[in-house]
């Protein structure tokens, strides 16, 4: 698949997620084949967490979802109770590359499906994990 087509597919995912960005207080930026999402608890805190979603090899492979430090590269700055304990660092929820290819590799229940596990779908799951982890 050529780069232009991949960018169009990523843009469609971002456009769909932006429809609910306001209620969830997400700020979404695209940078090449990655997007960065500033996420926060909707009611409790102004503290934000930066999520990097890497769409390389999309849509053949699930995107990678990793919280990163301010340099936008190094995994870090994780919200409480969101990071999975195994390597590679990631989030164990349906639709993340780390879940599908590592934590639940070979599990027929969590096969990659780009039509089901949209960016919006996975961000909503991560939002719920973030808020449960912070509490309140």
């Amino acid at each position, binding site marked *: 698949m050529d780069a232009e087509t991949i960018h169009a597919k990523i843009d469609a995912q971002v456009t769909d997620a932006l*429809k609910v960005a*306001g*209620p969830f207080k997400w700020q979404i930026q695209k940078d090449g084949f990655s997007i960065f999402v500033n996420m926060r608890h909707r009611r409790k805190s102004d503290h934000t967490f930066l999520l990097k979603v890497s769409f390389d090899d999309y849509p053949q492979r699930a995107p990678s979802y990793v919280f990163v430090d301010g340099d936008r590269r190094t995994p870090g700055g994780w919200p409480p109770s969101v990071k999975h304990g195994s390597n590679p660092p990631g989030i*164990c*929820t*349906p639709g993340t590359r780390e879940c599908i290819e590592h934590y639940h590799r070979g599990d027929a229940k969590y096969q990659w499906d780009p039509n089901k596990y949209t960016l919006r*779908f996975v961000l*909503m*799951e991560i939002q719920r994990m973030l808020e449960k982890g912070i509490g309140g």
Partner: protein
Amino acid sequence: MENHKLNLTISSANGDWEDNFPNNQPVHALKTRAIAHFHMDPSQADQFILTYDGLTLDESRTLAELGIPDGAIIILERKDVTKI
């Protein structure tokens, strides 16, 4: 309370639904309609909540009682983290 229609958007992980809803409609009824609209399993309705501005809406109250404004975006979301 006088009955008005509110133009609302119900957004879920699976898409958006914009329509007019009576403001005297209880939130529970709105959730039931939304679950049907998005072709979700009605037996799992208890696993979902409706939120507005980050707050869970009391399903026994009406949209008017909760002060939901015209044009609001209501989120249909899972109550708990998905266990895998």
